[in-house]
């Protein structure tokens, strides 16, 4: 769950606004509805959307429920990708062997929210809210994941990080739908991990989080991916730091040097969950933890 819509900020809850509900059973039907209806919004788990609606942060007139569309619920591996359908819940992902092969994503989906939220909420829903704290965003970004966006007459595939345009702002048009998340099948010599700091484990938004992806050959880093949550307007990938570590031996010293450099690229803010200074200080710490956890998984 992206709990960014939670009542943590103490916003009062209104009754659920008077929407009209549609439950198409085909993807084509859903796309048609999104095209035709005025102020329509797709809903899957609704774990964030319903709360946003009750806080009047989001005011659709129609909800198009995607849960009745069988063709959107799958996890498969083909064409060099692990493909995740739009309605796959965190629980479904966490119990799927293919997702175990994407360790950072597994870390996120297996501990996001609570059992109730994991059974209801989806990865698609988590990223589409475009919260900089979305737990599944950083793992997907470091694994170079892409999303398939469909509308009535068009299909686009873009990197996950391009979905995020600003806090709570995604790049989708109202008639567009994310139908699939696809992750390049991780290389044999790759590993990853996701680490977060929250006020407590369950529910809370991360104060700061980090995902690391590494490809290692004889203890030399040949490929690296690092992304941080809650430190900028969007989940933040840091290519400069990735380059610092590429081609280098993964010694404690090199890891420390690269992780300390992260401070230059993050621009966290101070809010109720933590101060900017604290967040900045925690980035290198979490990056080292994520790297060490990743490397531990290779042994």
């Amino acid at each position, binding site marked *: 769950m992206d*709990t960014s819509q939670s009542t943590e900020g103490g916003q009062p809850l209104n009754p659920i606004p*008077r929407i009209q509900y549609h439950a198409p059973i085909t993807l084509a039907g859903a796309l048609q509805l999104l095209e035709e209806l005025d102020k329509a919004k797709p809903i899957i788990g609704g774990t964030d959307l319903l*709360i946003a609606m009750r806080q*009047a942060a989001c005011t659709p007139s129609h909800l198009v429920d995607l849960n009745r569309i069988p063709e959107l619920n799958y996890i498969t591996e083909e064409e060099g990708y692990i493909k995740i359908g739009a309605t796959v819940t965190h629980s479904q992902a966490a119990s799927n062997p293919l997702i175990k092969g994407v360790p950072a994503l597994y870390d996120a989906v297996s*501990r996001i929210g609570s059992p109730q939220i994991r059974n*209801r909420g989806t990865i698609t829903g988590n990223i589409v809210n475009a919260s900089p704290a979305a737990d599944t965003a950083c793992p997907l970004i470091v694994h170079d994941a892409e999303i398939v966006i469909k509308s009535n007459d068009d299909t686009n595939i873009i990197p996950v990080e391009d979905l995020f345009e600003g806090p709570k702002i995604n790049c989708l048009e109202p008639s567009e739908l994310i139908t699939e998340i696809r992750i390049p099948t991780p290389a044999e010599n790759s590993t990853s991990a996701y680490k977060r700091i929250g006020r407590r484990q369950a529910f809370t938004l991360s104060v700061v989080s980090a995902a690391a992806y590494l490809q290692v050959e004889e203890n030399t880093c040949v490929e690296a991916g690092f992304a941080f949550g809650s430190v900028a307007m969007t989940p933040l990938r840091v290519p400069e730091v990735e380059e610092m570590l590429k081609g280098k031996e993964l010694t404690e010293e090199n890891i420390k040097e690269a992780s300390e450099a992260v401070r230059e690229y993050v621009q966290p803010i101070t809010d109720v969950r933590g101060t900017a200074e604290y967040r900045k200080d925690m980035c290198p710490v979490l990056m080292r933890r994520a790297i060490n956890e990743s490397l531990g998984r290779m042994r």
Partner: protein
Amino acid sequence: MPSFDAACDKREPWEDEVNTMKISFELNGKEIEAETTAYTSLLDMLRDELDVKSVKKGCESGECGACTVLVDGLPMTSCIILAPQVEGRHITTIEGLEHNPLMIDLRQSFIENGAIQCGFCTPGMLISSYALLRDNPHPTPEEVKIGIEGNICRCTGFTKIIEAVLDAAERIAPE
């Protein structure tokens, strides 16, 4: 202010004839048909229309777990599910598990371990604990904590509840 007319929603939702809808689903093993609206939560439908009062209304934002029910066997918070979303699904509350052997042991264990004080969180706690023990009969204390992390108790603290779940596991399937 966003355009939201709270005043018009003060009526009970199911009194609105224009937007009522009929949905059918299975509640505690019985096929039922309910008249509701698209903007009624499963929680409100259960409590106000179907008189299932064990399902408690707490935070209404999916965080406290007091309204937890099983949807097709999986614990979910009914406050953030729309009534029409459960069309054709199987909903189970503690009423439906009254004579279930696992639930009987869990309940007794909660009583004997002092895991209940005001009782408000208890139905949700029991549903989450039930789902946990059903899927994992021998949980570690850490697994129990994860199993009930979506349920908040403000009276007893969690120690006695965790002890009760571990104790119930011991009764049901002694190692």
